């Protein structure tokens, strides 16, 4: 792979345990490596907008770098954020 190429971000749906229930979530892969786990959140969960909450992140997406885990309004918002995190980590 050319280092200048943008990484390939892929999402894979999974059920995720969430305090006594199961919720829909996504594993987020960056060039095949696990980068983040998202969980679906409702308006009631967030006190604001529903969406996809960064439940766990790894490497450039980890809690060591991300103080306030974002809530992505749509799944389309995930890849640009992961790429931005990776670019920020390299700079």
């Amino acid at each position, binding site marked *: 792979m050319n280092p200048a190429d943008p990484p390939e971000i892929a999402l894979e749906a999974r059920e995720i345990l*969430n*305090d*006594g229930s199961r919720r829909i979530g996504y594993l987020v892969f960056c060039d095949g490596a696990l980068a983040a786990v998202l969980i679906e*959140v409702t308006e*009631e*969960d*967030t*006190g*604001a907008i529903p969406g996809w*909450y960064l439940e766990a992140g790894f490497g450039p997406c980890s809690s060591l770098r991300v*103080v*306030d*885990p974002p*809530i992505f309004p749509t799944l389309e918002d995930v890849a640009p954020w992961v790429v931005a995190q990776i670019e920020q980590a390299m700079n």
Partner: protein
Amino acid sequence: MNPFILKMERRDSLSAEERAVLEEAVARVRVLGPHEDVVREGDRPTDSTLVLDGVTCRYNLLGDGKRQITAIHVTGDFVDLHSFPLKVMDHGVATLTTCRLGVVPHARLKAITEQFPHLTRVLWLSTLMDGSMHRQWIVSMGRMPALGQLAHLLCELYLRLEAVNEASELRFKLPLTQTDLADTLGLTPVHVNRIVQELRQSGVVVWRTPDVQILDWDRLVRLAEFDPRYLHLHHEPR
């Protein structure tokens, strides 16, 4: 009666003269609505503020507008006694609810420290207690799981409110929003919501904002690893 007297008389005896001096220290009463600034970081106040009624917080703002609440102050707390010797505020103080605040001019505090050595120690004790709470919060937020952190805050606020007759029979008012709680515990609103649900569902508390009823104190204490020593609630000569 000025509730600061009530708070400190839990910890030490005050003479009639000392009580009168503290009553007269309040020059005027200020009423503020919820989420208003009492003092801002960088201000150089000439008065200190005593909470006569209501809930306030100390906070710091981060560059991107995020807020960390570093202390919650309730009825009877002398929120910015610090500003008298520190001069310039290194943090802000804001109301979380409608508050009645007693304004105590620094000139009166200066007179107290010059004329009443025991009362000066009592004021010192009040700021030392603020420090002991900050230490406990660091321990709790640095090393406890989120559920334990919230449990710890509930134990602490109940005992502090009980000490100024604002809570009894394991019931108290916690008029904080989930955002306020998130900013206090350094968590996201999503996680605060989850742990509140967990405390409710496990039958430890009944929580209908602002009313909190603790159903299982012992379990809450275990979850929080709560030891009230740092609140210095015992009575002895200081």
